[in-house]
């Protein structure tokens, strides 16, 4: 009971070399930005704070609550970390939690760790903070409500990304894994939302200064745009893909991710052809959405980094 | 019951030194929320002295201790080993004042014992070879040699307390400040710790509620209440003053 693996940690072997490498690359880039932000804006007090907060998220994941029929829910913590610590510190803290879970407990693989950090750490923090940022100066009730939605969406975002990565690796059928992952995590996300809201409500009551004071480094308005874009992607992509998986399949094959069984798995630098004039209109939309999203997220992060430099 | 401080004349110092190790003059401090924690505190400590600091919770003992190496900064003069406590001297003063916090889990923040004992010397900028010598010496002093590679979370409370003392001994401090060293220890570990403190040839200021330890170990005792020093003198004499003990919530051992 002490340590229960969460269902979203991808073990090694489930992702292809290419997908693992791309996820690691994205993770490294985003973490590099987070680190440079940390070095610029954090004070020395933040180092022990982030360290203990990482242990806090880890320990908080052990507090379970019985849901029904012998199953129990527990926290993943991405949204809570984002709201309590701000986006950059939240990302670094979640990175540490996922890294230790993979390294020490084999909960999630090492090669797959890039994907795991991306899904449960970086994406979850970004979408949760983006949404929460919209109500930063609003009444507490509204903040709590949005925090709940943000927590639920952070779990759904992670689940969607996980499903897509396994499918892109050619190791699952999209029309099964997508509804399955999203269905399970819609429930898990509900638990996440309930605990996150209750925990925040408790902190609002006892130490409101920690949530409303300016001590932790907060993100700018760019987070709102990024958060809403990811939300939009989750909301649109999930039903679209479930309804017509062939389109997405087609895109993946063209993008070189998806090997259909016989192709040599060691070719991990395939032709990178994005089918903007692809066969079906749907594939075009989805390829566009996926690509634009990735590019926007990256551009935003890099843009912030460049702009902040004197 | 209102406590009257002025009625008790402060017993003169035992030694005639002028505070060659620690000299505090008219120190006042209030927390940002307005709570006044220190009122006109003056205190002298001489080389080799072992002094107990007693008083009820909230008397200002911990606040006073946090001033001794510049974690808090009130109004007044503090001199450590002849050096005025200011921003410039702070790094040297932090090396001279060895601060041992109450909860060893806060003090031992590194995964291994070696890393924790080496943390102080390392941040003082001491050379690598010298650091290893100091770590070994500090661990020997607290009778924990051979523990360098142990993991902090595997240690017992008594072991943690000893290692916590080693983490500051490795900085070769001129004065040790200990907050509640015997709290949370079982009788045997407590006895071992008292023997250790007795043996250590370092000037000490020890905050505690453990009056038996005060009687057995500290020739001099300072009583604080409501941010003031209300008595300072020979332990043997002050412990006989039942009115003083009563007024400040202290128990006779």
């Amino acid at each position, binding site marked *: 009971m002490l340590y229960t*693996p969460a269902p979203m940690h*991808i*073990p*090694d072997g*489930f992702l292809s*070399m290419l997908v693992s490498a791309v996820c690691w690359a994205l993770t490294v880039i985003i*973490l590099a930005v987070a*680190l440079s932000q940390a070095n610029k804006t954090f004070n*020395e007090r933040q*180092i022990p*704070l*982030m*360290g*203990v907060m990482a*242990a806090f998220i*880890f*320990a*908080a994941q052990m*507090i*379970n609550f019985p849901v029904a029929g012998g199953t129990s829910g527990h926290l993943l913590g991405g949204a*809570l970390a984002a709201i309590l610590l701000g986006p950059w510190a939240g990302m*670094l803290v979640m990175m*540490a939690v996922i*890294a*230790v879970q993979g*390294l*020490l407990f*084999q909960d999630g693989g*090492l*090669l797959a760790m890039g994907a795991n950090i991306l899904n449960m750490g970086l994406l979850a923090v970004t979408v949760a903070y983006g949404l929460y940022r919209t109500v930063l100066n609003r009444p507490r009730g509204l903040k709590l409500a949005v925090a709940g939605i943000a927590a639920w969406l952070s779990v759904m975002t992670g689940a969607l990304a996980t499903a897509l990565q396994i499918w892109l690796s050619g*190791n*699952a*059928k999209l*029309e099964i894994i997508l509804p*399955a992952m999203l269905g399970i995590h819609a429930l898990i996300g509900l638990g996440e939302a*309930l*605990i996150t809201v*209750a*925990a*925040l*409500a*408790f902190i609002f009551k*006892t130490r409101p200064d920690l949530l409303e004071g300016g001590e932790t480094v907060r993100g700018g308005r760019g987070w709102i745009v990024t958060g809403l874009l990811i939300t939009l992607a989750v909301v649109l992509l999930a039903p679209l893909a479930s309804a017509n998986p062939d389109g997405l399949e087609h895109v993946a094959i063209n993008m070189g991710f998806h090997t259909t*069984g016989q192709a040599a798995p*060691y070719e991990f630098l395939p032709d990178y052809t994005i089918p903007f004039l692809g066969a079906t209109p749907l594939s075009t939309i989805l390829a566009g959405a996926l690509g634009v999203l990735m590019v926007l997220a990256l551009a935003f992060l890099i843009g912030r980094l460049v702009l902040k430099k004197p | 019951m209102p406590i009257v401080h002025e009625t008790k004349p402060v017993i003169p110092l035992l030694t005639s030194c002028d505070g060659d190790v620690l000299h505090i003059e008219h120190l006042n401090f209030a927390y940002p929320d307005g709570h006044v924690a220190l009122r006109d505190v003056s205190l002298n400590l001489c080389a080799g002295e072992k002094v107990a600091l007693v008083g009820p919770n909230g008397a200002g003992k911990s606040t006073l201790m946090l001033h001794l*190496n510049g974690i808090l900064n009130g109004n007044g003069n503090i001199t450590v080993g002849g050096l005025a406590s200011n921003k410039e001297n702070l790094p040297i003063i*932090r090396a001279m004042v060895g*601060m041992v*916090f109450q909860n060893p889990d806060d*003090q031992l*923040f*590194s*995964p291994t014992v070696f*890393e924790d004992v080496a*943390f*102080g010397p390392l*941040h003082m900028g001491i050379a690598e070879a010298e650091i290893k010598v100091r770590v070994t010496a500090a661990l020997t002093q607290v009778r924990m040699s051979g523990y360098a590679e142990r*993991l902090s*979370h*595997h240690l017992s409370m008594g072991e943690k307390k000893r290692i916590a003392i080693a983490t500051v001994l490795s900085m070769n401090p001129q004065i040790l400040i200990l907050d509640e060293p015997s709290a949370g220890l079982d009788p045997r570990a407590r006895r071992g710790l008292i023997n250790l403190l007795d043996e250590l040839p370092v000037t000490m200021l020890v905050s505690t509620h453990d009056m038996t330890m005060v009687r057995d170990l500290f020739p001099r005792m300072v009583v604080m209440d409501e941010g003031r020093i209300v008595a300072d003198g020979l332990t043997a004499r002050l412990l006989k003053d039942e009115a003083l003990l009563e007024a400040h919530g202290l128990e006779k051992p």
Partner: protein
Amino acid sequence: MHDNVFDRYRPGDSILHRLDPPLKVVVTVAFIISNVLLPDAAWLAFGLSWLLILASSQMAGLGIGYTTRRSVVALPFALAAITAIFSVPGNALADWHIGATPLTVTDAGLLRFASIMLRAWLSVQGAILLVATTRFPDLIHALEHLRLPKLLVTIIAFLYRYLFVLTDEVLRMLRARMARSAAMPGQQSGGSLLWRAKVTGNMVGQLFLRSYERSDRIYNAMLARGYTGQIRTLNPHVMKGRDWLFATLAAAAFTLLQIIGRM
């Protein structure tokens, strides 16, 4: 009590225990990459990979079956791979319909599923071997030598240290909750789902506040010992002759596995 729950290190003095930790990390990752790169149905290569693990486990003094016994952690995720059975084109073996979705079990699909499971199972054993023969603090230092930024390494080191302290606090809280969760005979206990979630949330909030205050005290303890914002560490690392030998042998073995896997 944590000794068995959180510590995956098994003390020993074998060659594997004494190898350079950064090298062990690199070799473990290389082993996992080797597994992932093996083609589907490379049974001989999968088998030899497992033999490597068994032999290492034995050499480390853990007993031959140690990693295999502990490798079940990856199993819950198997469900996600089961759909591979239907997703790889090949000769149809069986047909089903779930609603409107046709599910065709193919021979290539079955091979893919079995291969994924084997890759996951072998990889997780490699990782288990790594943490069983390397103390976690040494692993943290290894990350530093592998050029992981210092801030990340420091956060991980703090996480590891306070994992034990905070999970102890959680256990005490859970016990206190249990001690007060009584139920009358025949009555359902625990209140509504919302109420239970609220109690859990309060515990999380409480834990946060305690952790936050603790980080303040730790910061003071660091300041008192000369911390000025830069974390310094002292952990020299030298590759010895046996480390180079081991690295060469591992590289040769993994290359051979890839060749065998493609024959």
